[in-house]
């Protein structure tokens, strides 16, 4: 009887999310996610929100959209061709690239967007690739597209990431299907075993699905800008998609380039140095943040988790932070660059979400103001109740947006 009760309690806990999790206490968004609710209502203006949200874009369609925007609105001359040769100037800059159909294309600055082939920054300049596979072990992804059971099946409102024996599974609810994938370390799991893990997660439907295998090469170029050439996108580097950091890096790099486009060759080296410094700082912080997800786990079912906790695999910068956080929570002054990708709060969610406890014995006064804390907790509770009462399900909102669209204001 007792055991049954306990099981039931646990089940109830799972259904309602963990009632006293860190994220539930400090933010109303966990509750929304657990209930599969939308981040806004049909009355909320387009791009405005009640809870934070982002879109999943069809990358194929988005690329066409961007291409059209660039050609029609920005007056860009778009040439599709193969680069067959890179021609250097006296100062080792790229003077032009020779193409199959359009001859030589000269330029003052070249952006390497050639993906993993890294044609300019990698092949031409030979800027070394800095692998981080000694820190982040994941090197393979198996992805499937899972259809919904019914046309009106619930659509999860958040990406569900679940730890597995040698990595983790992503589960993304889209309008017409789910995107599910297992990213794992091939040193810690055979492909066969990985397929079995993914099949176990997806269930009966798995047998009929086409599995796509994608290699993941974790790391980045040692320099992102060399002479008059800079890499943006996969040519610059890639990391496992745990925090969707690859896209952020593309956006940040593109923004930095547009804002700091050198006015003359004279200033380009200065701009390049700064760009490299900032970009490398960002890559390192992202690597630290991804690694943080692994080192707090107490899992012992596979060497994958034990190896992740091995001190040799943890960057010194992260070790230093962990040392500080033994006695206090991550704070803004731990991340003082104005180029941070993740704020202190992100680190708090991971640390305390994983059950880490800071030891306040030496600074008990930090915990003195219980009234203030209580105020924040109860404020959050009110927000949570309000959100749960007013937000529609994710499916319901998406159906309405399809039928009526969102208002511009």
């Amino acid at each position, binding site marked *: 009887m007792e055991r049954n009760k306990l099981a039931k309690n646990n089940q109830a806990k799972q259904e309602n999310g963990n009632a006293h999790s860190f994220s539930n206490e400090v933010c109303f968004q966990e509750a929304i996610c657990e209930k599969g609710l939308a981040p806004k*209502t*049909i*009355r*909320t203006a387009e791009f405005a929100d009640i809870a934070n949200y982002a879109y999943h874009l069809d990358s194929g369609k988005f690329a066409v959209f961007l291409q059209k925007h660039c050609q029609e609105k920005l007056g860009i001359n778009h040439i599709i061709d193969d680069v067959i040769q890179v021609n250097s100037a006296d100062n080792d800059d790229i003077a032009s690239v020779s193409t199959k159909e359009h001859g030589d294309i000269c330029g003052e600055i070249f952006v390497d967007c050639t993906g993993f082939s890294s044609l300019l920054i990698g092949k031409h300049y030979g800027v070394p690739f800095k692998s981080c596979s000694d820190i982040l072990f994941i090197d393979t992804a198996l992805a499937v597209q899972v259809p919904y059971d019914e046309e009106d099946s619930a659509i999860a409102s958040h990406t569900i990431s679940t730890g597995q024996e040698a990595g983790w599974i992503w589960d993304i609810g889209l309008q017409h299907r789910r995107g599910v994938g297992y990213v794992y370390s091939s040193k810690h799991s055979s492909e066969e075993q990985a397929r079995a893990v993914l099949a176990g997660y997806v269930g009966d439907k798995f047998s009929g699905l086409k599995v796509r295998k994608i290699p993941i090469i974790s790391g980045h170029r040692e320099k992102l800008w060399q002479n008059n050439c800079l890499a943006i996108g996969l040519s610059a580097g890639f990391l496992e998609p745990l925090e969707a950091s690859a896209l952020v890096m593309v956006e940040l790099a593109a923004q930095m380039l547009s804002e700091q486009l050198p006015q003359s060759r004279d200033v380009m080296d200065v701009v390049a140095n700064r760009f490299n410094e900032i970009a490398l700082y960002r890559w390192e912080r992202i690597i630290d943040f991804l690694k943080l997800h692994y080192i707090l786990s107490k899992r012992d079912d596979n060497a994958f988790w034990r190896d992740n906790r091995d001190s040799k695999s943890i960057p010194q910068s992260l070790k230093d932070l962990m040392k500080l956080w033994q006695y206090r929570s991550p704070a803004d002054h731990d991340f003082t660059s104005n180029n941070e990708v993740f704020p202190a709060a992100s680190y708090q969610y991971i640390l305390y979400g994983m059950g880490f406890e800071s030891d306040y014995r030496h600074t008990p006064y930090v915990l003195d103001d219980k009234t203030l804390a209580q105020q924040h907790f109860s404020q959050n509770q009110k927000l949570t109740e309000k959100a749960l009462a007013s937000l529609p399900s994710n499916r319901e909102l998406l159906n*309405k947006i399809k*039928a*009526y669209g*969102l*208002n*511009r*204001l």
Partner: protein
Amino acid sequence: MASLVAINNKTHLHLKVSPEKAQWHGSALHLIPVVASEFINLAVQYPVVLTKNGDTGQFVFAAMLGFETGENLFWQNDQWQGLYLPLHIRRQPFFVSTNDDEQQGNDEYAVFIDSKSPTIEANSSKGERLFNSEGIDTEYFQQAKACLAQLIIGEKENQTLLAILQEMELIQALSLEVTFADQHSTNLSGLYTIDEEKLAQVSDEQIVKLHKGGWLPAIYSMSSSLGQIHALIDLKNKKKKHHNEQI
């Protein structure tokens, strides 16, 4: 909740309705849908605003009668104290819908009655009949149908006006913090109005379009009606004071 029944001269031959009780339908509404052709009449007493339909998120025109759900400040002593009764109140207890049996493109509409409306008289000595003894529409029912027809036309005009306002980007959110005499304050959200700055900057072509379409009176009525929010605050203050005195 309205319970709609299609009207016919057999079932409803003897039915009687008291039109003066129609106002009961608005006794607990703080926003009521309105049509552009009545903005001028409404603006004399009520703020005319835009709000969004909860189901579709689409804009609708509404007259504001109170500050919170269920509050009609014009409803006092079991009576509507306003000079002008919006069409959506006067139309009660009748509703109209396109008849599913009709071919598309046919402008036939079916008329329904809210069988739970307080206007329906159980006591046959009171009220107006819908049909004479031969089953022909009475003058009262003809008027009621005319009122429904006005609403149908009004809804179509509303859609045209809304499309124009959105296309010319003349709508803006109305953010307003209202403080009552007892210092209690409330944030009005979810309301929208005419963006007067943008209206002042429309192109020649656009102003001609607004003028020729006959939309300018409605637009200016909306703008000027916002002043009625002060009158509404005043009503609320009086109601609160009265309430406090009784306590």
